Structures are given as C-alpha cells and as structure tokens.
C-alpha cells in the first residue's frame, strides 16, 4: 500500500495539533493551580482511555458534532455565516419528537419519517434567516443568533405545553416508543446507529462539494459572489439560500438523531451547545466535510474528557470553551498570515514584471 507524502504530512500536522492542544490544557491547568497529572489522567480515561468512555462518551458526542460541524462547513463555504446550528438542532429535535410521538405505525418507516421531519424542521428554521437575508438584507450572523434564543424558548414552551408528558409533572415530552429508536450498536454501550447515518451523510456531503457542479457553484459563490454572478450560469441567491437550508437540514438531523438515539424524549437541555462547538469543529477541519469526521472526534473526546476532569479533579468543564476559542483564533490567524504571505509575494512580483 502506498501512502502519499501529503497524507503523512497531514497526519503529522494532526498529531502535532493534538499534542499542542494537550500542552495548552496542561499549561492552563498549571496556571489555575490544579493537579495537572490527575486532571490529564481524568481527561484520558474519560475520553478514550476505556472502551466504555470511548463508545458511550466520546463517540456518542461525536455524532451531533459531526453533523453540525458539516452544517457549518457547508454554510461557511458558501459565504453564509450560519451561527444558528444550535437553534436548527433544537428545531430538528422538536420536529422529530412531534412525528415520533404521533406516528400510527412504528419501525423503520416511522424512524425514517421522524429523521426526515427533523431535517425539514432544521431547514425551515434556517430558512427564516435565509429569507431575512435574501429579501430584507438582514445580516445572518445576527438573525441566526436571535433565532437560537427563540428556538430555546420555543422548546421550553413545547415541553411545558403541547408536547409535555401525560402526567404534566416534568418539563419534557413523553417517551418515544422503542420501535422508533435508533438501534444500539451491539457491544458498544450507548452508541447507536446514528453514527453510521452521520458518517455516511458527511462523507456524501464532502463528495458533493468536491465532485459535483452544485459543489463547485457553492464554493464559487463563497469565494467571490460577484465573480460567480458575472461568470453567468450561477444564481447567487439561489445557491446561498440552498446552502443555508442544507446547513439547517444537517443540524436539524443532528437534533433528530439525539432525540431518537440518545434521550428518547424532548428536553430543554437537549444540546450542551453542540451548535457552537460545531464552529470550532468546522474551522479546524478547514471547512472540509471529510476532515470534519476527524475534528468532531477530537472535540467529542475533549468534551467527554472535560466532564471527567470536573468530576475527578474539580476542574471547571467550561475550560473546554477556552480551548475551543483559542483553537479557532489560532486557525484563523494562521490562515490570515498564510494568505498575506502569498499576496505579498505576488504583489511584489507583479510590478517588476511590468517594468522589465
């Protein structure tokens, strides 16, 4: 088997990145006066150190991060600043719950319908921001953040109102029937078939972006909308709206899978902020869906390990948000510096050629 030097070097970069992250965590722990060895041990055992933590903690968390990360990648690639994956995930969870609870039939058709309802609800929630952007010129950065808050209160209303469980004692929906659950993967703890759905869909999304005309149009619009429009054949508004709603559908699917594979009911705290972590997942993957598979695993392990660090070493789990933010800043700064170096070189060369 031949391994290209590109694959080797990107594997080395990835390994270096992981080591750098662990180094930063150790530094922050040291600065905070925590027992570094004990905390790192908890991070390890809580994330990948045992079969149970690997499957039931890390891989279970990787599923929503993979799909929302892919959602962000698709949107950002098209030049759409969708910060609303969190709200679209909640909309998807609510949509899937509503369908799963009211289905007269059960089994695979009901499951597929519930997943589709989640994706549709996510797409519709993103669609609001897409319409506001295309028809009214509202910045989607602001509108999607506002819609995240609205989604949170809408779910809060649903689990205390129309979707509340029959006894009306708890703020949650009724339990979804076993027949509409995503099957557990045998021998892998709480891990469910949703991970297969997620991997297949994210790989497919990456293939569409790399190898199809739609993918090319999406990236052309994201790179330079004016050029894409003047090159003809590309309806920029259509492409950005489509990318926006696809992004919403992916996030909505993540919510549906959480409900049908993990919680089996709709809760207010369905997501511990997957839609925001997704931004870090997508940026670290260079907005490439295929690489999102890997970065979602990394962040899932970090978040699973952070929970263990809080339990076993008393380290606040919010430390993960600091790490994520530093990673995002590091990535965008590195990209900006690389782009500038290239443009400085070409700017410097051009006049010399002209003079010669």
């Amino acid at each position: 088997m031949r391994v290209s030097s590109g694959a080797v070097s990107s594997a080395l970069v990835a390994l270096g990145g992981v080591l750098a992250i662990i180094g930063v965590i150790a530094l922050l722990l040291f600065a905070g006066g925590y027992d570094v060895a004990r905390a790192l041990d908890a991070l390890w055992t809580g994330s990948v150190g045992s079969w149970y933590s690997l499957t039931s903690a890390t891989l279970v968390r990787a599923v929503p991060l993979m799909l929302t990360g892919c959602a962000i990648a698709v949107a950002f690639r098209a030049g759409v600043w969708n910060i609303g994956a969190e709200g679209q995930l909640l909309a998807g969870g609510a949509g899937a719950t509503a369908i799963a609870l009211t289905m007269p039939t059960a089994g695979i058709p009901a499951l597929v319908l519930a997943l589709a309802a989640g994706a549709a609800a996510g797409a519709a929630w993103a669609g609001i921001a897409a319409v506001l952007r295309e028809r009214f010129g509202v910045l989607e950065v602001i509108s999607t953040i506002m819609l995240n808050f609205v989604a949170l209160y809408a779910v809060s209303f649903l689990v205390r109102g129309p979707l509340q469980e029959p006894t009306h004692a708890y703020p949650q929906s009724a339990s979804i029937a076993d027949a509409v659950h995503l099957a557990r993967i045998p021998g892998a703890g709480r891990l469910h078939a949703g991970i297969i759905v997620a991997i297949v869909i994210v790989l497919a999304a990456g293939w569409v972006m790399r190898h199809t005309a739609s993918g090319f149009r999406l990236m052309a619009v994201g790179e330079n909308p004016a050029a894409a429009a003047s090159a003809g054949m590309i309806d920029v508004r259509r492409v950005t709206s489509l990318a926006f709603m696809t992004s919403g559908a992916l996030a909505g699917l993540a919510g549906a899978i959480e409900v049908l594979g993990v919680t089996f009911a709709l809760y207010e705290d369905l997501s511990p902020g997957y839609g925001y972590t997704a931004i870090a997942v997508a940026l670290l993957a260079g907005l490439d869906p295929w690489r999102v598979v890997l970065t979602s695993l990394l962040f899932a392990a970090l978040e699973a390990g952070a929970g263990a660090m809080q339990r076993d070493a008393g380290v606040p789990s919010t430390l993960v948000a600091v790490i994520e933010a530093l990673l995002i800043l590091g990535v965008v700064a590195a990209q900006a510096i690389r782009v500038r170096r290239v443009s400085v070189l070409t700017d410097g060369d051009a006049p010399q050629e002209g003079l010669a």
Partner: protein
Amino acid sequence: MIDAIAPFLAATIRTATPLALAALGEVLVERTGLINIGLEGAVLAGAFGALAGATAGGVAGGYAGAVFGGLLIGALFAFCVLVLRADQIITGMALTLLTVGATGTLYRALYGASGAALHAPTSGPWAVPGLVSIPVIGQALFDQPVITYVTYLLAPALAWWMARTHAGLALRAIGERPDAAAAAGISVAGVRAIAVLVGGALGGLAGGTLVLAQAGTFVENMSAGRGFIALAIVVLGRWRPLGVALGALVFGAASALQFAFQAMGWGAPYQIFLAAPYLLTLAALAGAMGRARAPASLGKPP
C-alpha cells in the same frame, strides 16, 4: 393608568441603559468599517470584571473592573483583526466563546462550582434635585443609578463629537473610504484600534451596569445575548448615536411591557415574553435594513 406609567418608564430606562452603552460603543467601531461580534463577550467580561473589582474595591472598583474586562476583549479583537488580519466575524465569535469559557472557569475556580449567590455592592439610585419632582416622568427618569445619567449625556456628546469635530470626521471618513482617508494622512489602523478599544470599554461598562446597578451579583452567561441585541440596535439606529439611544429605548419598552402584561395576568405562555426581545430584533431588522445605509466599508477586510 397613570400609576402604571411611572414603573413602566423606570423599567424601560433600566433595561435600555446597558443596551445603549454597548450599542453606542459599537457605533464608533462600525463607523470605522469594522464589526465586532465579540461585543457580547465584552459585555460578559465587563460583568465578571465588575464582580471581581467590586469584591476588592466596592462600586468604583467594580466599574473599573468592568471597563478593564471590556478593554481586554477590545484589545484582543484589535490585535487579531488589525495586526494578524484574521477574519472579523470568526474572531468576534471566538472571543465571545473565549469569554463564556474564561468567565465560567474563573467564576467556578474563584467562587466555587455551586455558584452560591454572591453579592456585589450596588450603586443605589441618586435622585437629581429638581428634575425628580417633574410629575409622572420625574421619578422614573431622574431617580436612577448614576451610570444611567452618564448614558443620557454620552449619546448627545458622541453625536456632537462625530458631527462637529475633526477626529469625528476622520472616523466617519475611514468607514466610508478607508483608502481616501489613508491618502489624506489619517492613520486608518490607529483610529480603528482606538474605536475598538473604546467600543470594548463601553461594552464592559454595559456588563458592569448589569452587576453593579441591577442584579447585584454575577451569573454565568448573564449577558444573555445583550451584546448581540446591541449590534442589532446599531442597525436600527442607522449608525447614529441619537438613533441608537432611541433604539435602545424601544427595546427597553418592549421588555418592560412583559412585566406590565404579566402583572395584568395576561394568560399567554411566559416564554413568549422571554423570546420577545429576540423576535423584536428580527422584525425590526427586517423593517429597517431596506432604508438604512451602512458605512461603505463595513465588514470588509481591513
């Protein structure tokens, strides 16, 4: 009915004050062509700084801590965007995330994971002699914490400064035509850096107001999207200080209405009231965008 107006006005002013402070700072930033989504982070950092400062040095220490917290976020934004030339939107989001994580971690590390109610000293209302005895509105408008009066004065002062001074003209010129401003000898990056720092400091002051003039304590994520709402208010106010002050008042009134409705026992789900400011932002933006004109270089890479 008259009895209901004074509490309603007072609640309006109370909610509008932090929004106006944050939005006025962002007006300066956006008039130079930048957008700082990290404003939400500045507000939260200001709130935490207020708690830390107030436990050490009382209310004055609290406001100093709030300004320092906001300045820190502004400085990080300026460094990433103006020096490293990182993308503005992503930098702003990352700084907000950083603040959520850092304030949460520091709060739990310093004050305990349980988050037991921690009391910060608060600045009580100070009645303005004379004005407070105006019928109906006097009590509501002029029996407020001092920071509210600062905000009353800041809006017209900024409006005057931007319209009538050389420095204000330079600021506006950069937002419209940065290349022309640079050719005229204005230090574009320098003015932008100052605007971002002042914007961060005012965002921090907004967060300080939440702790020192209202809640009397710090809660994780207590900014609750106010920085984002302030960004929307800048658009509603059409990038003008007085317009922004008016926009903040409209938002304050909308939030105050929820107390009025709840007091009247209106039987709607309470989540509608909680979601109202965000829905109002969306509706107002959709209505305002068509007619407003943003600074020409807004959001373009510096």
